[in-house]
């Protein structure tokens, strides 16, 4: 199975810094050498895994979906919900039953109309257990989700089949009339609308659901662009502006994505003038910055990285051990040395682009102080005589963790060993709480709300998260936040939960990724902006020269 690149892993860092963002590259219009003045934007992209909204899980697929499909909502540059197909924000009386109004007149590119019923069918397909869609998990909070999943396998992995799902339709989703969609949640949650901008909630045409495989090769979209031809695997995806799109029409007529596989990135092609917008890799960053100057844009993202601790392990169960490790890391020095200063030091659990961000929740524990760290560790029972095992999955993360290990060794007087595992093995051991030392861990947002950086990662009791962490007050505050009346009340509660969490430090936050993007000479640099939540270029504002 492929590495899931949207979710943060060591691999996804490669995708984001190298191919993935190169993918989000920009435009070409008029051109220096005269051949590009055809209104075409040429971008690079890694090979997407899938182009069906129900199953998209990484930046590559998300980039294409963002062009071909339009959802109920998207996120604006501040991370707020912005209607696209919907008419205004969702309304509710009790935070349990939500009503979403649709605008009239939107259709799919094959002529099918988009009504409330379209969403009911699309979401039923996405959630139904036997279809094994990645996007199913995003509907968890909706009433009836559990009944749509496969039953428990009576004999584990034995010969008997797991029971079929009890229901084929999501009971919490109803089309009241063609333009009104009603969603009932299992529990009231004020944050629900915030999740609706994600790819998994995008509509799919009947023709598409009837033959998903064909639709994956030649997507039937409903967005500003229409695919030209089909998906040429490992080679290219071309698309043209769809004139019948009722939403905002972008100015760029045509986008050609060139697909890069393996370690290859769009950067050499950008330098060769064959790609219009690209992201330099870590090694090219400094040279690119010097060479392109103002044409390079750097932006914050919602991708955070940290050193996770096995709280379930005796050696790391003492919060002071974890604090000592965290204080022994010179975060700025680390980022300057390894990433040429292009990333931001993390001193909170939530990154700055996410609504609900609070600065400095990690406080003293995230401040570099080798003397205090050494003293703190000496006062604990931590066994200094055995090497600390640092765990990572194979890929660029090995480098990241090695340099962290070097710092820990120098500042704490410990020795370390790197334990590198293949991705499935790493995930299995992490799920099973079998990692015997700190590990590299990261997160990118599913939806722009600080709760997304807290509850899924550290909540659900000691067996419900990777760290074996259990904070009663933390979970209490999260629950209060989930029950809050308004979104701002909820955010405040989540922030309180974050502060409580920071005292326990199951993860030492280290850095927040920043993207660097260089804009080629065919694109108006002032028109370039990247959506910090989706990670894609805002195609509506982008203009060719």
């Amino acid at each position, binding site marked *: *199975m*492929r*590495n*899931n690149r*949207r*979710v*943060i*892993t060591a691999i996804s860092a490669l995708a984001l810094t190298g191919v993935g963002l190169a993918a989000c590259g920009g435009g070409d219009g008029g051109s220096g*050498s005269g*051949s590009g003045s055809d209104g075409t934007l040429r971008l690079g992209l890694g*090979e997407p895994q*899938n182009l069906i909204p129900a199953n998209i*899980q990484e930046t590559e697929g998300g980039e294409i979906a963002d062009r071909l499909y339009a959802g109920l909502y998207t996120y604006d540059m501040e991370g707020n919900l912005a209607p696209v197909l919907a008419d205004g924000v969702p309304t509710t009386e009790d935070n349990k039953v939500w009503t979403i109004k649709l605008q009239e007149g939107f259709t799919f590119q094959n002529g099918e109309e988009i009504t409330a019923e379209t969403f009911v069918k699309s979401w039923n397909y996405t959630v139904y*257990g*036997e*279809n*094994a869609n*990645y996007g*199913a*998990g995003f509907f968890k909070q909706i009433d009836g989700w559990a009944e749509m*999943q*496969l039953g*428990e*396998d009576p004999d584990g*992995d*034995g010969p008997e089949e*797991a029971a079929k799902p009890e229901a084929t339709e999501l009971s919490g989703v109803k089309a009241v009339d063609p333009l009104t969609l009603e969603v009932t949640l299992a529990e009231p949650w004020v944050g629900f609308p915030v999740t609706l901008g994600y790819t998994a909630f995008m509509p799919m045409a009947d023709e598409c659901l009837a033959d998903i*495989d064909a639709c994956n090769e030649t997507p039937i979209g409903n967005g500003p662009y229409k695919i030209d031809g089909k998906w*040429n*695997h*490992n*080679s*290219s995806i071309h698309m043209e502006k769809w004139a019948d799109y009722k939403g905002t029409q972008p100015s760029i007529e045509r986008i050609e994505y060139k*697909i*890069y*596989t*393996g*370690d*290859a990135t769009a950067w*050499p*092609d950008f*330098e*060769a*003038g*064959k790609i219009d917008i690209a992201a330099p890799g870590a090694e090219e960053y400094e040279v690119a910055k010097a060479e392109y100057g103002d044409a390079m844009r750097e932006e914050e993202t919602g991708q955070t990285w940290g050193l996770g601790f096995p709280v379930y392990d005796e050696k790391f169960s003492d919060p002071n051990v974890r604090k000592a490790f965290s204080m022994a890391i010179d975060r700025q020095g680390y980022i300057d040395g390894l990433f040429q200063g292009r990333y931001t030091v993390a001193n909170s659990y939530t990154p700055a682009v996410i609504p609900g961000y609070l600065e400095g929740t990690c406080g003293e524990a995230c401040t570099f102080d080798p003397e205090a760290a050494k003293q703190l560790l000496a006062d604990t029972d931590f066994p200094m005589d055995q090497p600390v095992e640092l765990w990572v999955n194979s890929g660029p993360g090995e480098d990241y963790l090695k340099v962290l290990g070097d710092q820990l060794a120098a500042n704490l007087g410990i020795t370390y060993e790197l334990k590198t595992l*293949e*991705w*499935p*093995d790493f*995930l*299995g051991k992490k*799920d099973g709480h079998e990692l015997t030392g700190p590990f590299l*861990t*990261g*997160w990118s947002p599913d939806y722009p709300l600080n709760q997304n950086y807290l509850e*899924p990662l550290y909540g*659900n009791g000691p067996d*419900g*998260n*990777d760290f074996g962490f259990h904070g009663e007050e933390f979970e209490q505050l999260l629950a209060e936040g989930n029950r809050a009346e308004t979104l701002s009340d909820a955010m405040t509660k989540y922030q309180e939960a974050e502060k409580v969490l920071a005292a326990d430090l199951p993860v030492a936050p280290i850095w927040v990724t920043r993207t660097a993007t260089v804009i080629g000479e065919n694109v108006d640099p002032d028109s370039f902006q990247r959506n910090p939540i989706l990670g894609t270029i805002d195609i509506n504002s982008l203009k060719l020269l």
Partner: protein
Amino acid sequence: MGRYVIRRLLQAVLTLFFVLFLLHYLLSLAIQVNGNPARTFFGDKPATPEQIAAVEAKFGTDDPCLDRLGDPCLGMFQQRMADWMTLDFGTNFDGYAVTDEIVRAVPPTLILFAISTSVWVLFGVTTGVLAAMKRGRFFDYLVRAGTTFTVAVPTFLLLVITQQLVGVSLGNWARDTFGRESVLGIVFQPSYDDRYPFLSLLVPGILLGAFGIAGITRLSRTSMLENLRADFVRTAKAKGLTSRRVTIVHTLRNSLIPVITLVGFTLADALGGTVITEGIYSIPGMGGLAYNATRENDLPVVIAIVAILSVCFMVVTLLIDLLYAVLDPRIRYE
């Protein structure tokens, strides 16, 4: 000859069976040792056992034998072989037919091999023969030093440096000077361009050709030297034939027999080399596919490609053996 061919074919079929079983067993073991790849579908995001079970069922890794370490999964093997007979290689972990992926990957690799083979035959054999004829002179030493050096430089190093120097630096100059779509601008580029499959594969093809060219050049040289001293050449000279005719008709033709064998074997060896070449130059061929699939643990793709490449290898060696039997009358098989 007929019996030889039949025996050789039977051997090949037997070998193929064992290779396929070996690959199947290795992959089953890999899942048993490393954990079920279905889990990676959800990445760092938590997933319920039910969700994982659904993914396992979708991708055919739900057979309980995959949980028993050392189990050869014979049932899966039987099923796999039956599918493969109909050229159905299953689906990869993104749900695409592996057969389609492979069919798409064949043309770039064939072009790459066509270029590399031309390099071996045209450049390797020519320099080898010329070096033999100018034995002991400067050109001979130059060729010997050159071949030694190509052996000593690892292929990946050559590829990476060429990509940067030729693809980017020289290429940018060519594109600035002659235009973006000029022939030189396309030839000197850092990655594959599907609009110009042949031109953009020229440089990586030549570099792949550098892999193994030393062996071919040297064998051409020694084989030529041996034959220049051979009795039949002496006889031909004694008969008063011109030296050019002796060289071309008698010596060269006979010298090339072992070289053809080596070209075949080098071609088969280079199947592995394509993994690196195609990986670095982002060529969507068989090697590139294998490279990515291995990194992503996409087992159905890996096993299919290795199996197909192994079959290619066997076919190539079989053809070499048969060709050899035809070309060299001294070889007669029991």
